[in-house]
């Protein structure tokens, strides 16, 4: 039988606030356990949560970025369950009326077609603490520093039909939250966590199959593998005469499989109700306008503009808009040098390769945009050849100063003095009479030998155009 995969994602993205969503405790990553957990985060009696304005602003920015409706009035609710890293016995979340309503994003599939993925909603909520199960015999250690950290949970429609589509969507959301500056998106630190709802159905069937939820995936590669495994597991199960059970599963990267979390039957009975400690959140036109006033150009728009304004290919435009920092860098090089195509080649070629090799981000690049533009200017005005430019780039990368300094200190300046090139060629022609004879008897290919000799003699610095022209003239005899 032919099966169709149906995937929906819930993405928890940590908002980049200084303080918690409902308390004034700081949110810095990596602090000593429980040093950033105040009375509100600990759920001590008699405390009152007060909503952080920046968390609301960030949610609104996201809503605007995905063309969603922003609810003029939304409600906070208590989601009740017991777990030691949730000291209150409930998580403050949003249930019936979330702050961000229906929106959408576009993903580009392998074959270049564009697919629209619906976003059902996005709501504000608080994170729980961390449980450490390993270090204490018979006990679990609880660190509540993360408790109360603001999250935006972004829920998609079940619009994705393959693990690859799910990854493309997740990457798009990741790109957006970083572009608009609401989250650092750091996956190692847990700032971007994905849950995947996966089901299969016979091709052509209208109703969905029973879904399993894969919880807490923190890398795009694992997301793809986890869904792939889960799809195969469900198909094997059904084809073997079994049925899929609706349950929560965990992905084990070491074994590359998903496992049931064996939760109790009533575990999903969260008994949501409006939190009496919090009044309805009202967002008026002024707040909305202020929140999105400095919203930057979004990735899709930037990609289209790079293609139109700079004549970039779709591939290059996609690559160079992957992050806002990279796009800004490229644009600055393109503008300063006046050579967008060369700028694109250098940024996506030498620079990216060097960054990857050094495992650093664009913001940490020892070669600034101005320096790279300076290098391109020297290629353009003929000071250096394209070949030696790579050497200059390396010099700049290794701290040799800007392009002019590296060219000067390493003596890489192109030789354009016709007299100097002529005398070099005269000597080479005189020293290789046999090859000259071959050329003159019609063996054109030997020309390359002469070019090579001149370049060798000049240390690669002779202007190639001039070398060709003078060589031809001299070899004619």
């Amino acid at each position, binding site marked *: 039988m032919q099966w169709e995969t149906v995937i929906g994602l819930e993405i928890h993205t940590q908002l980049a606030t200084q303080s918690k969503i409902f308390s004034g405790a700081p949110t810095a990553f990596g602090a000593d*356990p429980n040093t950033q957990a105040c009375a509100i985060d600990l759920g001590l009696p008699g405390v009152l949560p007060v909503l952080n304005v*920046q968390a*609301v602003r960030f949610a609104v920015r996201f809503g605007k970025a995905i063309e969603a409706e922003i609810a003029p009035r939304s409600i906070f609710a208590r989601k009740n369950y017991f777990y030691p890293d949730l000291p209150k016995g409930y998580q403050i979340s949003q249930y019936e*009326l979330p702050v961000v309503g229906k929106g959408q994003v576009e993903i580009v599939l392998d074959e270049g077609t564009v697919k629209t993925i619906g976003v059902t909603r996005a709501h504000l909520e608080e994170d729980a603490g961390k449980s450490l199960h390993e270090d204490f015999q018979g006990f*679990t250690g*609880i*660190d509540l520093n993360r408790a109360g950290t603001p999250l935006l949970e972004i829920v998609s429609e079940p619009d994705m039909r393959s693990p690859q589509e799910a990854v493309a969507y997740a990457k798009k959301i990741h790109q957006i939250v970083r572009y608009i500056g609401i989250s650092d998106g750091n996956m190692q630190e847990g700032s971007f966590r994905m849950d995947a709802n996966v089901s299969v159905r016979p091709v052509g069937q209208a109703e969905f199959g029973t879904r399993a939820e894969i919880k807490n995936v923190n890398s795009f590669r694992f997301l793809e593998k986890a869904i792939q495994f889960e799809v195969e597991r469900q198909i094997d199960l059904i084809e073997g005469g079994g049925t899929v059970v609706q349950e929560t599963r965990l992905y084990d990267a070491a074994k590359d499989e998903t496992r049931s979390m064996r939760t109790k039957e*009533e575990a999903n009975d969260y008994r949501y109700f409006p939190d009496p400690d919090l009044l309805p959140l009202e967002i008026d036109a002024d707040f909305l306008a202020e929140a999105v006033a400095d919203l930057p150009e979004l990735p899709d728009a930037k990609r289209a503009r790079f293609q139109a304004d700079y004549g970039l290919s779709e591939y290059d435009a996609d690559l160079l808009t992957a992050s806002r920092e990279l796009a800004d860098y490229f644009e600055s090089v393109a503008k300063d040098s006046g050579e967008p195509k060369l700028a694109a080649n250098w940024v996506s070629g030498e620079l990216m390769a060097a960054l990857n090799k050094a495992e650093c981000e664009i913001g940490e690049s020892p070669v600034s945009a101005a320096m790279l533009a300076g290098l391109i200017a020297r290629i353009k005005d003929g000071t250096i050849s394209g070949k030696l430019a790579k050497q200059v780039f390396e010099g700049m990368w290794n701290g040799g100063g800007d392009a002019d300094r590296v060219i000067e200190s390493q003596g890489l300046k192109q030789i354009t003095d016709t007299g100097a090139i002529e005398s070099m060629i005269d000597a080479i022609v005189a020293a290789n009479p046999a090859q000259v004879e071959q050329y003159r008897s019609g063996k054109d290919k030997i020309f390359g030998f002469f070019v090579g000799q001149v370049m060798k003699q000049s240390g690669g610095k002779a202007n190639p155009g001039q070398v060709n022209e003078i060589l031809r003239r001299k070899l004619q005899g």
Partner: protein
Amino acid sequence: MALDRSDIEKIAHLARLAIAPEQTERYAADLSNILDLVAQMDAVDTSGVEPMAHPLHMAQRLRPDQPTEPNQREHFQSIAPLTDSGLYLVPKVIE
């Protein structure tokens, strides 16, 4: 709406409340009465009335995003039954 014994046991378990078996019937009766009152209110025609999420007709006040809470770990952990290396210790929980 009438709640029976098993409803009460389930609700008590979800709320992690220990209820003595002889009290179950009384809770069932009390909670059923409350639900009857809700049903009575439900019967009132409220079409055109906007549902309230809170008895106060006010909007949530917002707080500036500034850390204001100092580290008081020692103070808070002085009332905890068990701590180690800055962590609260609880009986082992495994999923």
